[in-house]
């Protein structure tokens, strides 16, 4: 907890924001913004903090994606978006790979400059309805026929939330092809470290001065913390109660992330800044208390969180344990 006690007093100069599940929920009809998020983005910009959208969305080109967000009231531009497809293109060009694309139709233009003849690798994106048996079989046959099969997956999320419910994400299909061919895929996008690093480069802020905000405990929070950033999980989007027990989060600052997550209902930057200092002060106090009693948590991460949960306001809903 030491890193959080006074650590939060360190300046935060930039924010990486996940998009789906934080700013808006995607859907067949274009999706719907999450209440208060557009206003929050405006306030971030007005406060002088730098902003970069760090998304794994691969159902559209960046230009179309930004157009959609702007139509919902988000004041963002293409330069402020870090997405997997351009990163994958760079990778393909560096390694001389010619891809067979199993991606959403609307993403294909991002690969316009790439040679796709006589493919020697498969690129997998969130193809949604295009994840048919026939399409998957085609990708499988190509991979199994390669001497050295290369499978590049744009992200490895398990599922995401759309307006009409939860849906399987590219990760499930990545695992399917990995199992079928007995290979391991390379992930471009969250939670790969290189992806966060390129987002930070585009943000122009070092990791210690950046905070990642997302709804996915593994891809957003876990991945960001592996890079040395601090991270917050919001309870919108795909968030499900109990998932923070499952994340493989080694950084002890997780606990405060979990606490802040309980107390932060919505994306409200100014309140959160105040919160960080408050949480930092409280956890510092607990540490002192802990070292006297030695009984409080028994060293278990969960134990610490349970103690902090006593601070949760009464309105907190208890979801079914997964």
């Amino acid at each position, binding site marked *: 907890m030491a890193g959080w006690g006074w650590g939060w007093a360190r300046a935060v100069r930039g924010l990486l924001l996940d998009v789906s599940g934080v700013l808006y929920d995607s859907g067949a009809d274009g999706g719907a913004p999450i209440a208060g998020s557009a206003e929050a983005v405006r306030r971030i910009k007005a406060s002088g903090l730098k902003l970069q959208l760090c998304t794994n969305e691969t159902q559209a080109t960046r230009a179309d994606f930004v157009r959609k967000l702007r139509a919902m009231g988000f004041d963002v531009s293409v330069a402020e978006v870090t997405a997997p497809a351009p990163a994958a293109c760079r990778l393909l060009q560096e390694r001389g790979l010619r891809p067979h694309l199993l991606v959403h139709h609307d993403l294909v233009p991002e690969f316009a400059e790439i040679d796709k003849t006589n493919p020697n690798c498969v690129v997998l994106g969130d193809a949604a309805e295009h994840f048919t048996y026939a399409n*998957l079989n085609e990708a499988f046959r190509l991979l199994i026929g390669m001497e050295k099969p290369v499978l590049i997956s744009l992200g490895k999320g398990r599922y995401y939330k759309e307006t009409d419910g*939860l849906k399987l994400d590219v990760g*499930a*299909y990545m695992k399917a092809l990995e*199992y079928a061919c007995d290979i391991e895929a390379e992930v471009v996008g969250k939670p790969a470290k290189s992806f966060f690093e390129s987002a930070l480069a585009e943000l122009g802020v070092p990791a210690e001065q950046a905070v990642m905000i997302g709804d996915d405990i593994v891809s957003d929070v876990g991945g960001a913390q592996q890079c040395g950033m601090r991270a917050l999980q919001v309870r919108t989007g795909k968030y499900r109660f109990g998932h923070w027990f499952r994340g493989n989060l080694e950084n002890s600052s997780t606990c405060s992330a979990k606490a802040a997550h309980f107390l932060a209902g919505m994306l409200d930057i100014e309140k959160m800044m105040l919160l960080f200092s408050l949480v930092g002060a409280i956890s510092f106090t607990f540490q002192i208390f802990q070292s006297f009693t030695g009984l409080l948590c028994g060293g278990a991460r969960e134990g610490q969180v349970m103690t902090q949960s006593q601070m949760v306001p009464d309105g907190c809903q208890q979801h079914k344990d997964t």
Partner: protein
Amino acid sequence: PRGRRAQRGGGGGGSRSVPGGAALAAPPFPPLGRARRLRPRTGGRNHPRQGKGSSPLSGLPRLCLVVFLVSLSQRPGLGGPFVLTRLRSAPVTVRFVTNTTKESKRDLLERLTGLGFDIAEHEIFTSLTAARNLLEQQQVRPLLLVDDKALPDFTGIGTDNPNAVVVGLAPEHFHYEMMNRAFRLILEGAPLIAIHKARYFKKKDGLCLGPGPFVTGLEYATDTKATVVGKPEKTFFLEALRGTGCAPEEAVMIGDDCRDDVGGAQQAGMRGILVRTGKYRPADEDKINPAPYLTCENFPEAVEHILKQML
């Protein structure tokens, strides 16, 4: 009497002679004892059974023969049906097992009777039967992602408002919408039952994805583990033996797939006989540990060995 079984015979099987000169790797199993000779009964399947685990009628050996169905039906010309008739006059219970997910028991029965085999429906055990037994045991209503031709094996099980998911080989169901339906059910707590997890299979026009990849994808997305009911899972063999009154140690499996048939059966505590027909490839018997109890040329030879050496 069962008590003497372990003391009878030599240690390993080194002193045995086997028809066809098949090499016998030293099996780690104690040999089955020689029980008193009895006058042969007609129809081994009519043996009175007192349920699994209860003491047998005095002197009756209990041997259950589990035969992998495909190896039986592939070479009818070798006198398969005749061999089966010989088996019937011996005091053994026979079961025929297969991992198919595309043929119902009735279709299988028709096909085999058409080939001249004298088989009753209750002697056939498929991985679909295993799935059905599990559903009945757990009293759940399944969302069935199985081939239409397999549906007759699930009649009588309610499928309205499903709270379980069964996945077989059913490419027509592996599209995004159906996968999402299954995914949401499992996320809400429905158990995921996989008939088997084959990675792929061969069709005329090339390799095709099996159910395994899709089950793996669902396991990953929901962070759960599927219950696999088909071979080479131990439960498959134990389920096949249920109702025969035989313990695995009293049963023998004959099959052509070293890893899935023989290996799987031996993991379950049975003895395995590998036949050199069908899927068999040279040196297959070296690929599992422990090695097969016996490797021999074909099904009739395997039966000869059993009738002469193991009863």
